């Protein structure tokens, strides 16, 4: 009898429905990029020459410098902060652990918006500095202009470092304490342990964090534009908005995707190592060392610097400005309406994204040989919002036309723009953008469940779907909740895709802020910005709770340890 081919085996076994669904998800995610490529091919040679000669060289150099700078700043800040709160015990450490997440609530375009005003030559900070130095006017003395590459790197670094801090801290927390002890007995000092043991082991986590921070950097339109840095992302935006040159924008977008592919490779590579290191979860964690009170105060102060610069200062500024505005004009109905829009869009997109994330993460577990579905599905996170938006616009624009024409022909009714007009395009783009957060988080949660549990459930009579429902879902609740929180925050904060795809007359907080900043009219934007930060803070607070709860439940983990010890 002939042996059945591997492909037949693949289709024969159960779980193929999961597989088919994962394939559809991958296709849906890939579609905007295909559309983008097709659109780019339409570009005329003349336009291309203009791009190559005048726009691309500046944009490419600026983008590379910005990425390098932000990578360095986030890696340094994130790793140092993570080590500070895991290696040392000092008063206020628990609070600092959570507070360090706060800048996550400040989108790049909001920090740029806030600091432009805070550090304005005739703003509060520069006034104070001049007063202290005895200068009279901005002509005599002014600080270096924030509207520069260095300013952009620092501002982005101070809000994006949590992307490095979160996974690195988790890695430090789960690092086996006995490895640290072993290093100490081998004559390595406590200080050197960081360089010799902790950091090398946490490198995958740091790499994942940097990759995520850099993808955020590439995504940013607002900060770079406000601060005068002409990145490729900004170039895509202006090429399309000001010159209505869709093929040209698509061409730059494709080039940008090349950089992005490198970052995705980095993230993927690092995550693979992370899964491997995850095996140590049952080990006793590292014990933080107590420090003298004077040193403790110093450590706390050092740890608070990024929180102050990345969150407290802009938040206070926004609160003051919002209060002034509220006193002046109260809350407009328009703002309340925007609040509803923002939450509805974010909730819908989160629900869709988590559902699809569960689907592809579990399909990849059922069939590790089809892991590329998952890689395709997560491509969108790396792609800047502008790139995704243009792709979605191309795909859904064609679909809308097709449906409209078909309806006219068969039913005699014009459907208009079904997708673009309903806001489905925004949800589509947000899903494409953030599926990686959802799938990645859920995948990481699933990878902590031993494969033997799957096999046990199967031999006890459960189908793959039943196994998912009875075993994986209850065991990965926390991971799913965490992923949902992250996706929700990102949807609320998201600017470029929402800006380009929202239906006519539908505004969210983010687009409102952008609109005012772009017009230079500082009216209600501070309230919108404060609202975004406030909404984003809520999940961040919950996220920090999850982190604290994680370390609090170590009592049961300890119990497990003793069992493990008696076994071996």
């Amino acid at each position, binding site marked *: 009898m002939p042996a059945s081919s591997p492909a037949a085996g693949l289709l*024969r*076994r159960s779980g193929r429905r999961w597989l088919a669904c994962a394939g559809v998800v991958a296709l849906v995610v890939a579609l905007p990029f295909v559309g983008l490529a097709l659109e780019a091919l339409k570009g005329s040679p003349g336009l291309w020459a203009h791009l190559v000669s005048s726009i691309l060289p500046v944009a490419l150099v600026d983008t590379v410098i910005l990425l390098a700078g932000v990578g360095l700043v986030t890696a340094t800040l994130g790793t140092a902060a993570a080590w500070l709160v895991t290696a040392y015990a000092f008063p206020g450490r628990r609070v600092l652990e959570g507070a360090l997440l706060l800048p996550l609530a400040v989108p790049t375009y909001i920090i740029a918006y806030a600091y432009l005003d805070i550090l304005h030559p005739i703003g509060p900070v520069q006034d104070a500095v001049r007063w202290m130095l005895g200068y009279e006017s901005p002509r005599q003395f002014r600080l270096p202009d924030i509207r520069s590459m260095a300013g952009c790197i620092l501002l982005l670094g101070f809000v994006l470092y949590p992307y490095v801090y979160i996974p690195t801290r988790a890695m430090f927390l789960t690092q086996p304490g006995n490895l640290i002890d072993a290093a100490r007995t081998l004559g390595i000092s406590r200080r050197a342990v960081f360089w010799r043991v902790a950091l090398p082991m946490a490198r995958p986590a740091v790499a994942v964090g940097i990759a995520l921070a850099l993808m955020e950097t590439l995504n940013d339109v607002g900060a770079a534009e406000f601060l005068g840095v002409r990145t490729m992302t900004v170039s895509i935006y202006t090429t399309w908005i000001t010159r209505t040159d869709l093929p040209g924008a698509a061409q730059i977008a494709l080039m940008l995707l090349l950089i992005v592919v490198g970052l995705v490779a980095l993230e993927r590579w690092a995550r693979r190592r992370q899964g491997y290191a995850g095996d140590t979860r049952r080990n006793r964690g590292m014990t933080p060392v107590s420090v003298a009170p004077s040193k403790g105060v110093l450590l706390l102060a050092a740890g608070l610097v990024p929180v102050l610069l990345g969150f407290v200062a802009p938040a206070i500024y926004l609160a003051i400005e919002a209060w002034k505005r509220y006193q002046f004009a109260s809350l407009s109905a328009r703002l309340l309406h925007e609040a509803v829009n923002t939450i509805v869009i974010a909730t819908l997109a989160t629900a869709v994204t988590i559902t699809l994330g569960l689907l592809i993460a579990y399909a990849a577990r059922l069939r590790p040989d089809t892991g590329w579905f998952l890689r395709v599905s997560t491509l969108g996170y790396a792609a800047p919002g502008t790139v995704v938006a243009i792709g979605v616009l191309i795909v859904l624009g064609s679909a809308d036309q097709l449906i409209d024409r078909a309806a006219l022909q068969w039913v005699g009714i014009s459907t208009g723009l079904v997708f673009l007009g309903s806001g489905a395009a925004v949800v589509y783009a947000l899903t494409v953008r953030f599926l990686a957060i959802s799938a990645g988080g859920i995948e990481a949660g699933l990878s902590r469940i031993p494969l033997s549990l799957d*096999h046990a459930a199967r*031999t006890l009579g*459960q*189908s793959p779907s039943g196994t998912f429902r009875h*075993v994986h879902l209850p065991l990965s609740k926390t991971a799913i909740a965490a992923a949902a929180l992250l996706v929700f925050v990102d949807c609320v904060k998201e600017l470029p895709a929402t800006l380009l795809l929202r239906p006519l007359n539908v505004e969210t907080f983010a687009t409102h802020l952008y609109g005012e900043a772009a017009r230079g009219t500082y009216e209600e934007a501070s309230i919108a910005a404060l609202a975004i930060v406030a909404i984003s803070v809520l999940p961040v607070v919950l996220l920090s709770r999850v982190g604290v709860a994680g370390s609090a439940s170590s009592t*049961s983990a300890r119990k497990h340890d003793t069992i493990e010890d*008696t*076994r071996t």
Partner: protein
Amino acid sequence: MTEPAVRLQKARREFGSTAALDNLSLDIHQGEILSLVGPSGCGKSTLLRVIAGVETLDSGHVFLSGRPVDGDGFIEPEARNVGFMFQDNALFPHLSVRDNVLFGLKKRKDTEAAARAEDLLGRLGIAHLAARFPHALSGGEQQRVALARALAPEPGIILMDEPFSNLDQGLRQRVRDETLSVLRASGTTVIMVTHDPQEALSAGDRVVLMRGGAIVQVGTAYDLYDRPVDAYTAAFFCALNAVPGLLRGGRVETRLGTFAAPPALAPEGATTLYIRPDAIDISTVPGAIRARIRRRVFLGATEHVILAVEGLDQPLTCATSARLPKDADIVFLSVSPEKVLIF
């Protein structure tokens, strides 16, 4: 004649370029307890997973009670009526002991399932643990819960993947004896994978020794120990002394004496004789072969004495239960000819 509980026909499974199963064929009888033993990476776990259906074959066939389950009409693991016990027990951490046992009984009526679970928990002496969660159990208790869970749906076959290796030595033997007596009483066919030769010899009705994805020898424990097919099998279950010899006229001449060779052995010339440590007797009473003690390793019931014999390059290890004088230096040895192995 009844169908074998499991029949494997030319089962083949490759991972990359290595064959985890290399055209392996094997019948396992109903109600039999079979030990599957071999070094790590020999394919024994893969074999178990193929029978359970959580791994597929590249080619070949698996039959469960005569029904083909792999190949074109693949049967899903949940439809095979096979129980699995894992090295890590694989208890569901979010479920209590009772719910773990009930997990495989979802298709039965609630009252019937509950009664079945209570009965099993009682029989295995873990009824008092029913409300606990796996993390609050000791290793031995987890083991018993895993057994109760696997037995609950009344599987025809129980597969065990090194289920006792996580227990410490004293506990292991007790839990194993309990487990196997429960399984024997229920008439279940059992396939137990182990890498521990002693466990394989003592636990199974039959023992299968595997190497490189293929079967080296199948038989009773006595067959494999007393009549190994080759030096690898012999050495797997017990350390051996290899002694060079010369085959001439149906006899092997060695420094330790001349021994009868099996009739089929050919050709004449240099050969190797294998002698187990317990086949060598030593005493201080002068005899034919003189040896000098190089080292003594006292193990309690026996003592391993490492001997240097003139004319042999390698030292000999001999196991004795007799007490030698503390300062013994020179001993005389004799070899029981019936325990000598020649291949």
